[in-house]
């Protein structure tokens, strides 16, 4: 399996305002990598840099072996799908049209989505179980539904790498788990997945590798069992947690202590 994403000692941030330094990671097909860290810790900035939306302030980002800084946006969008934390929705496009927008990188400059593109969008809506939302304006659906639509839009790009910025942040408990399940099945289908979360339980549940993002530094990536420990969580979040193991649990459950 070829390497899809590689970051080599990437410094990220804005000119004159560094956010983080020296981030290195690699993702191959079928890999899941979770970036775990507190809100405002620079996860989104790192994602933007890894997607070439922000220029790296140092180091290199390689997408399928090519330097992303030299790539056309269209080529990037055919490889990497991006699910932003939220998308405001300025105009009442239907959910169907919103998902169709994911097809843009596969269209000619002057083309509109074809029957085939519509079929792809329709299939993805059905697979994600939100086909009944197709005609609803994006502006009138709930936050959780929007999150699913944004995932559908990224999947409509037919990417080999899916980057999700806090995909479960605005979801209720049930939908959080459904999204995690979806992520797992996409990965077992060969998609490389990079996502961020501030919930250590999710990082452990996904059974991939984990990197901690804290104070502008990356710890890891490595196996969840090595990276997510009571000591590292105390260091990052300043809370005390218990790791609960049981014979029927494949991974430990993490429960915070209330003082």
């Amino acid at each position, binding site marked *: 399996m070829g390497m899809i994403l590689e970051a080599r000692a990437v410094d990220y941030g*804005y*000119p004159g305002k560094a956010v983080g330094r020296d981030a290195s990671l690699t993702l191959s097909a079928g890999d899941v990598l979770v970036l775990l860290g507190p809100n405002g810790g620079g996860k989104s900035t790192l994602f*933007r840099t890894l*997607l070439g*939306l922000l220029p790296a302030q140092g180091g290199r980002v390689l997408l399928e072996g090519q330097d992303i800084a030299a790539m*056309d*946006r*269209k080529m*990037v*969008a*055919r490889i*990497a799908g*991006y699910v*932003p934390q939220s*998308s*405001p929705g*300025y*105009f*009442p*496009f*239907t959910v*169907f*049209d919103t998902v169709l*927008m*994911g097809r*843009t*990188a596969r*269209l000619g*400059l*002057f*083309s*509109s*989505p074809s*029957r085939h593109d*519509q*079929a792809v*969008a*329709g299939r993805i*809506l*059905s697979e994600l179980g939100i*086909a*009944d939302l*197709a*005609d609803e304006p994006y*502006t009138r659906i709930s936050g959780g539904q929007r999150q699913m639509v944004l995932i559908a*839009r990224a999947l409509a*790009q037919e990417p080999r790498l899916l980057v999700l910025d806090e995909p479960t942040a605005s979801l209720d408990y049930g939908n959080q788990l459904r999204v995690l399940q979806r992520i797992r099945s996409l990965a077992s289908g060969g998609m490389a997945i990079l996502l961020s979360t501030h919930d250590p339980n999710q990082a452990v549940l996904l059974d991939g590798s984990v990197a901690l993002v804290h104070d502008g530094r990356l710890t890891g990536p490595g196996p969840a069992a090595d990276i997510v420990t009571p000591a590292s969580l105390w260091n990052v979040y300043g809370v005390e947690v218990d790791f609960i193991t049981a014979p029927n649990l494949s991974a430990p459950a993490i429960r915070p202590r209330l003082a």
Partner: protein
Amino acid sequence: MSVAAAIRLGSSGWLAGLLVPAVLLLGVALAALTIGRIPVGFSDLIHVTLAALTGASGAVDPLVETVLLQVRLPRVLAALLVGAALASAGAAYQSMFRNPLVSPDILGVSSGAGLGAVIGILLSLPAVGIQAAAFIGGLVAVAVVYVIAMAVRRAHDPVLILVLAGVIVGSLLGAGISLGKYLADPYDKLPAITFWLLGSLASARLSDLPVLLPPVLLGLVPMVLLRWRINVMALDDEEARALGLRTGLLRALLIVAATLMTAAAVSTAGIVGWIGLVVPHLARMVAGPNFARLLPAAAMLGAGYLIAVDTLARTLAPVEIPLGVLNAFIGAPFFIMLLLRTRRIWA
């Protein structure tokens, strides 16, 4: 509703969203040709059309024929083009700037055209020269705004910087216009300037159409071709780029297109506000936000709206009411009504 139904609706909704504006436009245009101080019946209209097509004459009063072909038809056609141009440019800008409160002169094209016209009048240029000065003024103003915005390299939100630069340059040009008025001969030039700035189609001739039509069509072409990408441009800049758009290039193209159209419209009709702001809203209510339907709906509604307002301007009172004034009197309450009726036009 199912996905299959949504795909089907994609094609049938096309018709529904366009039929209403098309019928309205046709009705308003026909009515505008018949209404006026010299009444013209629909039968006269048919006869004049037949006579013009076959070359035969005699069936119609020559006065009626002159009024129709030399006076009303040029005005209706000019109103059609100006209205369609302003509404199309407004629709494109509202999508691109992701803001339904944007009008086509947000980047200073109207102020630039106004200053160009003022200079033309002060220099005693002929009518065509004033029109050309206005057109060039509009283009130069937007070019200056664009260059300033590009110079702000660290812009986190390039769209916001563009709007800011537009506001700044617009008010600077406004000061230039005021200075021109202050310096102008109060008996001769000042009324001409005031009249120009108020906007009017009273002097529209058939000979204006070859000047007006090419820039309007030239501006429409990229909007039609890029119709799908304009939808994606309505997302945040970063999202649009993540979906594969070269947003900087597309934005530049659309600004050129909208500026050509608006400058042509303003240099023919003077400053006609409101259409570029209000009509795209109306079009969005009729045809939805998808630009492939929004653009034709906006163009037709804008054309119909301006024909109607111009007809009122020349018939309501014994003296012609300035188009810009009447347009604001009608446009502002109309916009308020729209806001009240649909509290969620854009949400």
